[in-house]
């Protein structure tokens, strides 16, 4: 029983998840303080989270090995994250994006419906927009599969170039 190298990028994701759990504690306290409880729509968090993990694992696997081959990737990632923050509805609501752009944007950047899905599910007692989430889910699964394939194929040469 040997441990696969997938464990290293996934371990990084685990570290971030632990961060998220810690950040969730004050978030939960706010709910208690303001006596505002989420309703059953909170269960939408589970599929949303699963899709988010699929996407993150796929990206993480692919980028981890590729950044061994192309060191520039490590430097560029910070910039891409900033851009990603602005093209995702983190600091603004999805409603400020023109309706005709929402679907293509969701397919290209599945974080759009994911982030905009958490918010209604937890805060507004609504279910996420499935017309956007459905196509985005396809993207997430494709990214995970492609990421895993890329990882498998590039992992072979890591020790040769590192």
């Amino acid at each position, binding site marked *: *029983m*040997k*441990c696969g190298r997938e464990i290293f990028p996934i371990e990084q994701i685990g570290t971030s998840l632990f961060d998220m759990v810690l950040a969730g504690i004050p978030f939960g306290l706010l709910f208690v303080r303001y006596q505002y409880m989420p309703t059953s729509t909170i269960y939408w968090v589970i599929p949303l989270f699963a899709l988010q993990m699929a996407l993150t694992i796929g990206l993480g696997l692919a980028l981890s090995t590729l950044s061994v*081959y*192309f060191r520039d990737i490590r430097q560029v990632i910070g910039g891409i994250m900033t851009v990603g923050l602005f093209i995702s509805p983190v600091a603004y609501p999805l409603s400020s994006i023109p309706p005709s752009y929402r679907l293509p944007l969701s397919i290209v950047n599945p974080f759009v419906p994911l982030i905009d899905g958490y918010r209604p599910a937890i805060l507004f007692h609504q279910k996420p927009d499935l017309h956007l989430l459905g196509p985005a889910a396809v993207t997430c699964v494709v990214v995970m599969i492609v990421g895993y394939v890329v990882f498998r194929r590039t992992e072979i*040469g890591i*020790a*040769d*170039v590192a």
Partner: protein
Amino acid sequence: MSLDLGALPEGAIRGDRLWKRFRDDDRRWKIGHQVKAKVDQWRHQDESYWRYVLRDVSFEIAPGESVGLVGPNGSGKSTLLKLLTGTMYPYAGTLAVEGRIGALINLSAGIVSDLTGKDNIFLYGSLLGLKRAEVAKKYDQIVEFADLQEAVDRQIKFYSSGMQKRLGFSVACHLDPAILLIDEVLAVGDATFQQRCLNRMQQVVESGTTLVLVSHDLAAVEGTCNRCLWLNDGVLLADGPIRDVLGIYRQWIEEVSEQLQGVKGEIEILKATATDGDRGSPRSDEPMEVRLVVQSDRAYHTTFFLGVSEGPATPIFVLRYNGHLEEGENEVVCMMRHLPLPRGRFYVWVYAKDNRNKQLLPWHPACFFDVIGNRLQRAPRGIIRLSSVQVTGDWTIS
């Protein structure tokens, strides 16, 4: 990785026509360059920057065998070990390695310098797929062998390199590996720890573990292994019983060093012979005469050093003589009364300096000779005999 060609027993290794190549490419970080390389590769054009470090290497190692892997620098020994551990993958050929691997290839491999020695032991165990309880069972043994009782709770980055090496070796060989791979590790530890390592390797081999040992210390290889693979420039040149392979390997080292011969210092050796004094081959325990014809451009007060070696530049013993060289040809004769050497081929190495310590002749082989006599008496297994000096004794037990 293990492409099965039939089930292998635990602890067995089978390499079939292994090839490994590396690309020496200083622009490999550039994506554009990579794309171009891919296109070239696709068109089967540019093969130039591939360097083949293993060429068509095939071998099979049965469980419990102890195999030494020798060869000059850059011959592919370490690459082969990395293939065995699964760190690298072969470019072509199939490799099957069955069983848990304990490897000591690189000081820092598998060791996190921010963790304590204790954490690292458990981490390494889990990398090998062991349960925490299984490692815990061996923990005391590991610490005791590595002699780190005071240091286990210290971070690895505060360890000396010897301590790191001790920890690495101890972990690798105490976690019941089916295969133990060791790459030139005995170089760091002090003399007592080296001997402990050798003893431990011996025990591990006797308990049925397969051992692959890479070392330039031929005496250590000879003392530990019973089979030897000789790699040269990526090609497996020899595979056989340890003494046969090391014999031809030592001879080959000598042939390579012989290219040094005819090195001209301030003086030159025109002719060198080593005989029994009467043109015959020298015999064990009998006198031997080394005769050097030395050409000198001027007169010198000289100190001659004459060494006898098994091939490499490290002599078994050295003789030294102060004398006066005249201008022109001189004959230097050294008569040894008892030749303490067993049967085999040995080499005469020579060095000379003048009375102001200026080098007149570099240390180089001058000639070889074959000794007639008894075979060398072997040391017990696992004990390294540094040089093959044979002294006959009369024994009594009363």
